């Protein structure tokens, strides 16, 4: 996968796929493809575009923006370049009574796509790979291409791709997708001189949508994206020409995730079959040792004894029943080490704090990153942030921002496990009430985010996830409590001092007049003692 590393987010998709299916022709390679062998991948998604989120005109335009922005962020981040992403939606004309045609343009400063890969990267729908695992942004891994496909379906116009890897030439393609054959159709191709050695990718295509209904979600999405990407510049120009700018405040970026092999607890039959298809190893011992995370020779041997499988058995000779049994045995064996979290890329406490401070401008912010944990063999990390006061509004309920692999989750909030964990917490213990201006940020990163439904908008109620969230929330709640009680104390002290410095001089003045004295007694000592008394208390 070294090669993938040099490519943009777009290209990585394609490249991974080629490794998986190289030994075999697409036919029969995967269960899904077998079921739909009569139609192309593009055709399959054309017919099932709801799965990818293109359910209605307003949702479609939101998803298109989101997918392209995520790809652009990935393209820059994979090489630790602070991303600059520019998004423009412009009005092209009426489509129907409720929908309009818009042109969507997304520019980034990512690594760029080598010209030979451009057509397939943007004009061919491909299945993603699960052969290697790492935390990825894209919810489906093909959302960008789906957006282009959706645009083509609704407007019959080609997409324009301009990209350069920072060399002296820039390449421009005009493409359409041949849906039945799942092939890019190149309508135009230009090579331009790139004097400034510009690097990046521009994608532009027309699509049908309902921007004005999607607008709040798009703006929420950008704001929340800026919150967890404080090192990115996001610019958005909407169809009315309004400019929204989210400026980076740091160039620090999180450590990118490493790719890992699947963990034995997390495999399913499909994955086993695919591994068996491609494995170059001819005995079970080597097969286990080389294809699974945290499985070495000794562990593999122990497992084979445990499951009563001959170490010399050729994995390719396993029957379907034996594969099913193998999967069950893998889950049952207790001695596999838990997965490590190097494949995860959490934001980290510093960046989280920076992002929250930048977008919410609170009076107080506390963050906490949990140690890596696992559910069903999948590693995950929970990060929690809490913001109080400042520009955080009080709405009579906590404001909750949810993120999965740094993607804002904007729909189905009520069903999300984080909401349940938050409402189950005894906030009074932490001196917090829903009337307070409090925003809570919950970020889960995992190689396999436990989404509840295909819509991938909310996190399922897994006990392991729930526990981590609850512990993380308790930690930030404690920090908030400390802040609140400190502030309350400081306020009280200030008020106390205020009362003394208001009344003592008056007592001095009145008693001087009453006692018929000339000189007003010096009360500075008394005030100082009040002050000193106050600071002692504050240190308690």
């Amino acid at each position, binding site marked *: 996968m070294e090669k993938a590393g040099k490519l943009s987010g777009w290209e990585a998709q394609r490249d991974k796929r080629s490794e998986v299916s190289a030994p075999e022709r697409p036919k029969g390679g995967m269960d899904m493809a077998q079921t739909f062998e009569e139609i192309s991948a593009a055709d399959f998604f054309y017919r099932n575009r709801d799965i990818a989120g293109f359910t209605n005109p307003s949702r479609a335009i939101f998803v298109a923006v989101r997918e392209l922005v995520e790809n652009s962020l990935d393209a820059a981040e994979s090489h630790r370049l602070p991303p600059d992403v520019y998004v423009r939606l412009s009005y092209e004309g009426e489509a129907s009574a409720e929908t309009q045609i818009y042109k969507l343009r997304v520019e980034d400063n990512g690594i760029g796509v080598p010209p030979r890969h451009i057509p397939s990267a943007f004009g061919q729908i491909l299945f993603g790979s699960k052969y290697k695992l790492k935390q990825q942004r894209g919810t489906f891994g093909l959302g960008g291409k789906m957006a282009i496909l959706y645009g083509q379906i609704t407007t019959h116009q080609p997409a324009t791709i301009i990209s350069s890897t920072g060399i002296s030439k820039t390449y421009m393609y005009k493409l359409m997708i041949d849906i039945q054959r799942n092939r890019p159709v190149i309508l135009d191709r230009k090579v331009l001189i790139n004097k400034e050695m510009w690097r990046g990718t521009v994608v532009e295509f027309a699509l049908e949508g309902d921007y004005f209904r999607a607008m709040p979600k798009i703006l929420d999405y950008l704001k929340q994206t800026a919150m967890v990407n404080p090192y990115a510049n996001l610019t958005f120009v909407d169809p009315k020409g309004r400019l929204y700018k989210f400026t980076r405040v740091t160039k620090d970026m999180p450590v990118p995730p490493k790719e890992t092999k699947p963990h034995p607890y997390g495999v399913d039959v499909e994955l086993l079959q695919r591994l068996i298809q491609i494995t170059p190893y001819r005995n079970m011992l080597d097969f286990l040792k080389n294809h699974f995370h945290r499985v070495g020779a000794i562990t593999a041997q122990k497992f084979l004894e445990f499951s009563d499988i001959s170490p010399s058995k050729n994995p390719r000779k396993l029957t379907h029943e034996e594969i099913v049994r193998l999967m069950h045995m893998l889950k049952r064996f207790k001695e596999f080490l838990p997965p490590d979290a190097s494949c995860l890329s959490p934001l980290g406490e510093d960046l989280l704090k920076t992002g929250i401070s930048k977008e919410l401008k609170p009076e107080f912010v506390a963050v906490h990153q949990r140690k890596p944990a696992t559910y069903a063999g999948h590693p995950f990390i929970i990060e929690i942030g809490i913001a109080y006061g400042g520009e955080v509004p009080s709405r009579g309920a906590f404001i909750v921002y949810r993120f999965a692999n740094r993607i804002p989750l904007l729909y189905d909030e009520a069903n999300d496990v984080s909401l349940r964990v938050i409402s189950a917490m005894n906030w009074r213990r932490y001196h917090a009430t829903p009337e307070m201006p409090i925003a809570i940020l919950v970020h889960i990163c995992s190689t396999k985010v436990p989404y509840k439904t295909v819509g991938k908008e909310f996190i399922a109620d897994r006990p392991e996830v729930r526990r981590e969230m609850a512990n993380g929330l308790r930690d930030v709640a404690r920090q908030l409590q400390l802040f609140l009680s400190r502030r309350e104390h400081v306020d009280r002290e200030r008020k106390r001092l205020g009362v*003394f410095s208001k009344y003592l001089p*008056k007592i001095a003045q*009145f*008693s001087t007049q*009453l*006692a018929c004295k000339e000189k007003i007694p010096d009360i500075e000592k008394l005030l100082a003692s009040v002050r000193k008394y106050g600071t002692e208390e504050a240190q308690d």
Partner: protein
Amino acid sequence: MERKKHRISVSERKKEVLAGLETLGSKIYDQLDKAIFPSIDMPSRSTDNIMYDEKLRQFILGGRRVRRSARNISHLKPFTQLVWAALFSNELSSQRKTSTLRDVYYSAQAYEMTFKDQQESNNIITDLETVLGLSREDFNIFPEERSAVFGDLTIEYTVPGYEGKTLDLTSHPDGVLIGPALTSSEFVKTSADKVIAIEKGGLFTRFIEENVHKKHNAVLVCTAGQAPRATRHFIRRLNEELNLPVFIFTDGDPWGMHIAMVIISGSANAAHLRELNTPDAKWSGVWATDIVDYKLPTDPLDDVDMKRLYELQKDPRYKDPLWRREIKTFMKIKRKAEQEAFSRYGLTYIVDEYLPNKLEETK
């Protein structure tokens, strides 16, 4: 001779007031000067420290004392208000001006002293009374006046601009308001041999019209409901300085009965003060037994009236047989009558028949 005695007491009292205020000021000043948080001790006015003194025949405060300290943040504001009130009283007394409780509330604002409401400023004045053991009238703060006096009594004013001027209290047919000028005046001469205090203004006017003051040789006082402190003190002076017996006529209900009792034995609210009561004064009517004996037109006692009777029954001031008998009778007949009820026998019946009978009965 009596006249002289009082003049001394008036001017001495003034001196005492000014000295008390200055002492208070010096005490606070000295503490501040030594960089000590000033504090003031005073008798506690909480209900468990109020007790009835059989000898004085009034409520007094017990031995428990409270300390107001400027170190305690919750005392700080009332403490400052108290010192301000002392200063304000000092200015009033030395400039020989008078003021009302309402005035105090507003005057404070000129010193950037704020009182939350009238009640708060009233409480502070009561504190000052407690600290000094003097009543607010002594430091020239008077309540709104509404009671009046009429009769053959000549007084001599002591207020600025009127010093030495005398007034015959029969000179105005509506009576003379018992205000600051009257309460600070000296008694010069009288031919009266008794005082009749009347609860209601209407009856007071009837008595004047019917020449009760002449027929019965009486000074008439209208208390206008519950007698203000200045009026209570004035009645006491009439009784003490002029040796006039005092007869009180109120409505025939628990409330009227209590108006008489407060004139006689004082109130718990004024337990920190002396010389507001007239222990030898008599309640002459309207009694519950009068309602029966005179067959007066009545109204039924309502729940509030009955509740009040039960309270009075437990009150230490009501232990004399007469009072106990009347409370019991009220409870038995469950009726009440106003003074005006005598009008059923003609407008002058009360003056010609009832009054002489009762004066005789309670002599």
